[in-house]
Each structure stands twice: as structure tokens, then as C-alpha cells.
């Protein structure tokens, strides 16, 4: 039974057939890892904690700078120079004191991703560069942890959800690397190409909605389907991501034996 307070707090969610009272309990037990504490995370994290997700692990070593303020609205001028994950954790605790929020002031890389993802029900890629995106995908596929990746740049937003057990030649779904087999660090990032704040917000909102649907066990999650929004053309697509038989992450090893094969984690080119 939910407390009267929780029943009131989550009443609009409880009305949803997808959620109900049971869904609130499911979310309270969910463990979500957020890679990156920039524009995407400042949108996604409050929605998840607000919806009742019980545990969030925030991973980033960046500090708040003045150029973040136009779109990373959990941060204000008073936070400039402070560690993003610590500021965000404090803001999230204020929003939902019952939530457990762990702030890890580290950039995700080959040395720590195993540890950062341990115990996760879901990983959210809110990072800001292609190198990290490829690594997060590789580790999530290897660990069998569902991944929601979102990104924005200029007037573009993209996002997709990946379920490792469905990916690869046996599953008929592609992973992030099947979509973008890219190792170049300078592919589409906000520092070099700029971004309109609301595009990050839209990508983050779509990512948050996917995350909650996954945690609530929605049977209609659009796994391995790229949502892309091009605001220059007013165009909006949902594209199926097929498995690439030559994918270095999901192409040559089935998920069932991936965890026993450490060589499936690419160490080169990063």
C-alpha cells in the first residue's frame, strides 16, 4: 500500500494504465545510471526523480560554467565553478527527498564504466561526445543493461532505446554502433557546432519518457528505433535500426555469452 502522501503525490501517474499503484512501487525500486550531467541530464534526471525513481547515479566530472546556463536550467549563476553532479544531486534531493541520488565526479571511460554501471536496471547516455557514446553502448551491451541514448546539436535532436538481449544477428535489432560505426571524437558535438537549448530539452524529454516506459515494463517500447527531429526542415522520423552483421559490438557475439567474453569490449580507438 502506498502512503496517503505518495498516493496524492503520484495521483496523475497512478491514473495511467501503464503505471497504477504497482508502477509507483516498481519505480521506487529502480536503479538508473546517468552518464553526463549536462543539458540532457538536467531534463531527464528531474523527470525521473519526480516520477518516483528511487535511485539515480550521476556520473560526470564537469563543473558548471557560464556557457551552460542557457539550457542546463538546474544550474544558476551561483553554481558556477561547482561540480555539476553535486549541484544536481542537491537539486534532485530537494525535489524528492525520498530519492537516493549518488553523485560520482568522474568522466565515464574504459577504466570505470563497469563500476559505474554495476547494479543498474537502465543506463541513460546523456554524454556530449561520440567516444563516450560508443563506450557506453559497448559496456551496456556487454553487461546486458538496457540503454537509452539521446543527443542534440544545432536544430537537431535524436534518441533511441536499446535492449541488449534483442540486439545482434539473433535478435534482429541493431545497437548504437550498428547505427553509427563512428570513432571520430569530433562528430557532432555542441562545443564545435552550437545548439539551440530547446533541442536538448526535447531530446531529454523523449529520453525521459522512454526511460519511464522501460522501467514500467511497457510492452510497446520502440527498441532500436531512432527518433530524429530536424527543426530546420520541421521533419520528424522514426527509423528502424537493423543489426549490422559486421558490428564490432553486437555483430559477432550473442548476448547470452557476452559476459564471459571480455574481448567483446572494444579497447581500441578510444
Amino acid at each position, binding site marked *: 500500500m502506498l502512503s496517503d502522501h505518495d498516493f496524492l503525490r503520484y495521483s496523475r501517474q497512478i491514473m495511467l494504465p501503464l503505471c497504477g499503484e504497482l508502477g509507483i512501487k516498481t519505480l521506487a525500486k529502480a536503479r538508473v545510471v546517468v552518464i553526463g550531467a549536462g543539458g540532457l*541530464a538536467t531534463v531527464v534526471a528531474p523527470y525521473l526523480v519526480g516520477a518516483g525513481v528511487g535511485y539515480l547515479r550521476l556520473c560526470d566530472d564537469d563543473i558548471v560554467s557560464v556557457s551552460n546556463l542557457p539550457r542546463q536550467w538546474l544550474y544558476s549563476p551561483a553554481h558556477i565553478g561547482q561540480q555539476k553532479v553535486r549541484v544536481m544531486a542537491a537539486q534532485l534531493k530537494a525535489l524528492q527527498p525520498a530519492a537516493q541520488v549518488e553523485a560520482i565526479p568522474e568522466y565515464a571511460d574504459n577504466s570505470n564504466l563497469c563500476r559505474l554501471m554495476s547494479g543498474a536496471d537502465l543506463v541513460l547516455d546523456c*554524454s556530449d561526445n561520440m567516444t563516450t557514446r560508443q563506450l557506453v553502448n559497448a559496456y551496456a551491451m556487454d553487461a546486458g543493461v538496457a540503454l537509452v541514448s539521446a543527443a542534440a546539436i544545432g536544430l537537431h535532436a*535524436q534518441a533511441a532505446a536499446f535492449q541488449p538481449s534483442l540486439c545482434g544477428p539473433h535478435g534482429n535489432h541493431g545497437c548504437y554502433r550498428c547505427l553509427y*560505426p563512428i570513432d571520430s571524437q569530433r562528430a*557532432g558535438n555542441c562545443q564545435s557546432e552550437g545548439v539551440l537549448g530547446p533541442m536538448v530539452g526535447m531530446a531529454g524529454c523523449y529520453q525521459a519518457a522512454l526511460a519511464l516506459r522501460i522501467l514500467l515494463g511497457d510492452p510497446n517500447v520502440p527498441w532500436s528505433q*531512432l527518433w530524429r527531429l*530536424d527543426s530546420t526542415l520541421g521533419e520528424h*522520423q522514426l527509423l528502424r535500426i537493423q543489426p*549490422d552483421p559486421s558490428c564490432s559490438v553486437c555483430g559477432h557475439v550473442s548476448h547470452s555469452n557476452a559476459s564471459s567474453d571480455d574481448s567483446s569490449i572494444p579497447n581500441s580507438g578510444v
Partner: protein
Amino acid sequence: MQILINQRPIHCTSHDTLDSVLNVFAQGSGVDINDIAVAADNTVIPRSQWATYALTANASFSVFVAVAGG
């Protein structure tokens, strides 16, 4: 033969592959071929299949650049 890339008509010959057409398209658009993805019939075509993908008249492709910011 004519195909469509992002709704713009592109002329190509029977010797062209998706790979060669995308190379020309990327150069003309000032984007790095390594940073793009392509879809037809609402399905992304894996990069490893570009070189062998058969072009048919009036096929329509959606080409877009990888987005990695956040």
C-alpha cells in the same frame, strides 16, 4: 536513372552504388562521409552494406548526420 536523397533528385548510373552516391552527396554538402547515416523505407542501412546496396530507379533515401552533443 534518378534517385532521391532528402527529397532532392540525384542522377546516377547503373555502375553507381549507394556508397559512391553518398560520397558525392557528402562532398557536395560539406559533411564528412564518416559522420552520416542513411535510411530507406524507414530503416537505417548499415554502413557495411553501402557498397553492395542495389540502387533502383526512384528509390528514396534519407541522409542525416550523427548527433552526439548533449
